[in-house]
């Protein structure tokens, strides 16, 4: 795959630790992946993915890494591959992953610890 061309304006390249910024490069890189996820608004498409994940990824011309990550429900890898969280949420739903599950996976915590971390942030104040 070609390296993405840097097209972001200076401010959009700002680094915020631990925080993916979905800008024009990511939108271009993840276009097909996000298109596949957008198709999951339709229940028939969710079923089609579940019965033939590889074939469904081929229909959307996902690259090898996007395909691997999509078939395995590997959300962090999908974000790195240009996935946008709002569209990926539809794929995560197929895998039965809640946003707490996703938070736990991305932070390396157990789901219980992640939920406790959320609750604790409310206790400080």
């Amino acid at each position, binding site marked *: 795959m070609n390296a993405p061309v840097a097209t972001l304006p200076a401010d959009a390249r700002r680094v915020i630790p631990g*925080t993916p910024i979905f800008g024009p490069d990511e939108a271009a890189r993840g276009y097909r992946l*996000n298109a596949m996820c957008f198709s999951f608004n339709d229940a028939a498409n*969710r079923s089609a993915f579940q019965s033939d994940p590889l074939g469904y990824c081929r229909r959307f011309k996902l690259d090898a890494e996007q395909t691997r990550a999509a078939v395995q429900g590997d959300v962090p890898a999908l974000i790195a591959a240009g996935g946008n969280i709002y569209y990926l949420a539809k794929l995560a739903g197929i895998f039965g992953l809640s946003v707490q599950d996703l938070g736990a996976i991305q932070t390396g915590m157990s789901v219980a610890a992640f939920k406790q971390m959320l609750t604790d942030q409310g206790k400080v104040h």
Partner: protein
Amino acid sequence: MATILGGIFTSHVPAIGNAIAKGLQHDPYWEPFFAGYGPVHDWLHVARPDVAVVFYNDHGLNFFLDKMPTFAIGAAAEYRNSDEGWGLPLFKSFEGARALSGHLVEALVADSFDMTVCQEMLVDHALAIPFELCWPGAEKWPVRIVPIAINTVQHPMPSPRRCLDLGRSVGRALASWTGPERIVVLGTGGLSHQLDGARAGFLNPDYDRYCLDHLGDHPDVLAAQSALDIVELAGSQGVELLNWIAARGALGDHVVEITRNYHIPISNTAAATMLLECREGANLKQAA
């Protein structure tokens, strides 16, 4: 002439929709959040709005990355919800305030806000859940709507300044509408939360309270930051604050806070509710 009654600002976390469907309003987890709506219900009972202008963001139901408008306005007679892909109940349809949409489109474009105008527009949980919260159990929504969608999916996002100015332009347009409508403005989403990345689960109560404290009387301080500043302070999805800032702009210069509620956590979100009432004469002054 039309009356702008006030603005309702509220989180729109999808899990709220499931909690309502399951009747969990008095569950210990949910009670502190739902309790915040009592004063909103009381106010709506007296204010009797018949139109709602709603600033929200689409989460990949209506808009895809093939064509992503920065600002879009509905001009339809009806707006439907549809399957969002992850098991939310379907929400009731909304009747559009089509004539008012037309007036807003004319006024906004004349004022250099070049809106994307949508005659077909599915509306997602970000629009529907606030209605479920404001008018629980309603058989039919008591208000017609004008939806205004702000891009919070892909950067660059509109600046908070631009969103506030858009809202102010909407406010001037509403104030110049000669119809008898009683209008409530909604701003949905937020407050701080982040779903993606190693910082997932980030919340920022200090910044949230700063926003709640300044939204009413000093919205321009919130507009002084960039959208990426808000991402840093409120989290990737906390940038939905842009909807609140735009909605605030539509209320005119003078508002009074009727109620607020703030609770952590609802799902991964610092949930907030705020109601600002327009002071009489504020809109006339703004239109001048």
